[in-house]
C-alpha cells in the first residue's frame, strides 16, 4: 500500500459522523469511483462486505457511498440527505450485503457504476480514520490511497512497457511513490497503477494515451 499517512489523517478528516471507517472513508471510495468513471454515475450496484455487511445502514455507509458517488466531500452536511440528492440527479442504486468474503479487508465495499458512455468497477477498503485503499479497479489488482495523484494505465502486456511509462513520467518531473502492475495473463491485458507526488501535464497523459499498445489511461487527482 501507498504512502505515509498525514498528520491530518490522524487529526482529521473533518467529517460528518458517525464513523470515519463507515462514513468518511466510504465517501472517499465513492469519490474515487467517480474519478475512474469520469462523471457522476446514472446507475450504481453497491456491495458491502464483512464488517460492513451488517452495519452499513446503522452507520450511514449507504448514504455515505451515494454521497461519494455524487462527488460530495467528507465534511458536506448533505451526506445525511444524499438519497434525496441522488433522486434529483437521476442516480439509481441498489445495495447488497455479503457476510464472509474472507480474502477481503474487514471494511470492504465494491462499486459497479455506469455512466451513459461507460461502466467501471472498484473494490475499496476503508482502513480507519478516513484512510482508504483502492484494492481493485475493473478487476485488476490496484492498491492506491488517493492521497497522492494516481495514474492508471490499461494496456497490452508487452515487453518494456513498465520502464517506458516510468521513463515518460520521470521526463515530466514526476516522482513515483508507489507502483503496481497486474495482468489477466501472459500477453493479455495489463494494468499499471502509479502513485506520484506531483501532478502530470495533460500533454504527458495525452501522449501515453496515444501509444498503440495503451488502451486507456485514467488520471485521478488527490481526493480529500
Amino acid at each position: 500500500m501507498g504512502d505515509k499517512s498525514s498528520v491530518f489523517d490522524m487529526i482529521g478528516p473533518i467529517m460528518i459522523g458517525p464513523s470515519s471507517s463507515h462514513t468518511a472513508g466510504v465517501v472517499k471510495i465513492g469519490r474515487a469511483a467517480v474519478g475512474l468513471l469520469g462523471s457522476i454515475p446514472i446507475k450504481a450496484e453497491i456491495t458491502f462486505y464483512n464488517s460492513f455487511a451488517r452495519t452499513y445502514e446503522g452507520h450511514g455507509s449507504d448514504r455515505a457511498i451515494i454521497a461519494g458517488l455524487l462527488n460530495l466531500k467528507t465534511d458536506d452536511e448533505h451526506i445525511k440527505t444524499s438519497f434525496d440528492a441522488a433522486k434529483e440527479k437521476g442516480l439509481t442504486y441498489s445495495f447488497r450485503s455479503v457476510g464472509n468474503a474472507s480474502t477481503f479487508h474487514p471494511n470492504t465495499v465494491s462499486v459497479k457504476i455506469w455512466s451513459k458512455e461507460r461502466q467501471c468497477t472498484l473494490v475499496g477498503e476503508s482502513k480507519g480514520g478516513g484512510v482508504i485503499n483502492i484494492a481493485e479497479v475493473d478487476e485488476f489488482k490496484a492498491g492506491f490511497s488517493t492521497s497522492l495523484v494516481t495514474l492508471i494505465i490499461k494496456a497490452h502486456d508487452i515487453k518494456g512497457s513498465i520502464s517506458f511509462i516510468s521513463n515518460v513520467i520521470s521526463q515530466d518531473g514526476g516522482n513515483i511513490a508507489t507502483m503496481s502492475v497486474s495482468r489477466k495473463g501472459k500477453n493479455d491485458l495489463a494494468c499499471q497503477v502509479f502513485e506520484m507526488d506531483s501532478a502530470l501535464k495533460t500533454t504527458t497523459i495525452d501522449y501515453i494515451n496515444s501509444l498503440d499498445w495503451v488502451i486507456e489511461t485514467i488520471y485521478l487527482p488527490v481526493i480529500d
Partner: protein
Amino acid sequence: MAYLFETFKGWNAYCTKKNCSLAESVIEYEVSQKGSLETDIYQGIAKAYGVMKEAVETGFTQDMTSNSGMISNGAKKVYHYDKPVLSKEFQNLIARALSAKEVNSCMGRVVAAPTAGASGILPGVLYTLQELHKLTDKEVYDGMLVAAGIALIIAHTSSLAGAVGGCQAETGSAAAMAAGAIVYCLGGDNNQVFNAVGITIQCMLGLVCDPVAGLVEIPCVVRNASAAAIANSSAQIALAGLDAVIPADECVEAMAEVAESMETRYKETALGGLAATKTGKRISKRVLIQDIDILPDQD
C-alpha cells in the same frame, strides 16, 4: 530525512539528536512527506480545533437525539447537573467529551481524532485543559501535533480501526493521544509524554468494539467520556514522573497482539459483547440489516 514515526524510542532519539521538540519533529515530517508549509499545517490544526470546540457547543445547544433514540441529549444533562462528583472541572470534562461525541452520533460535523468513533475525547480534554491552565491556542496546537505523532506510531505498529483492533484501537488510541498532549502542554519531557501514552494503553488494553446494533452510540458515547478521564489520570501519573515500566512501544505491540487474537465478533461487527445482550439484540433487530448473503467457501 525527517523522522518517520515508527517507534517512540526512535522518535525520542531523533528529537534528542536534532535538538528539536516533539511538535517540531511532527511539523518537519508533514513538510517533508506532504510538501506542506508550516503555516498551512498550523492553519489546518487551528481549523480542526475550531471544529472540535464547535462540536462541544453544538452538543450543548442543539437537539441531540439519534435516529435509534439511544442517544438523547445526555451531555446537556451532565453539564448542567448541580452536584459535581469530584469537581466542576471534572464534570465539564466528562460533559464536553459526551457532547462532541453525541454530535457525531447524530450525523453532525466532527474531527475524526483519530477516528470518528473517538471524536469526543480530544475535544473534551483539550477544551478543558486550555480553560483550566489558560493555555494559548498555539500551545494547544503543539499538543495536537504531538497527539498526531502518537497516532502515527500506533497506526504503524497496531491499528486505529475498531474493525481491526477493537475499541482499544479507537478510544484507546485517542486517550493515548490526549494523555500525551496534556503532558506535553504542561511541560513534561519526552519520556513523561511517552509514559503517559504507555500508561493509557495499559488502562485501555483489550477493550472490545461491541456497539449495540452497530451504531456508534452505545457504549461509544460513554466510552469517550471514560477515555477522557483515563487520559487525565494517566497524564497526572506520568507528569509526576512515574514510569510505565512497560515502554510505550511495547504497549502498542501488546495492543496489536491483543487485536490479532480478538475474535471478529468484538471488532465492530455488532455480534458480541453488549451488542449480543438480550436488550442489545432486541434493538439490533429493529435497526440491523438482516438480509445478508453468505458466499460458499472460497478454498
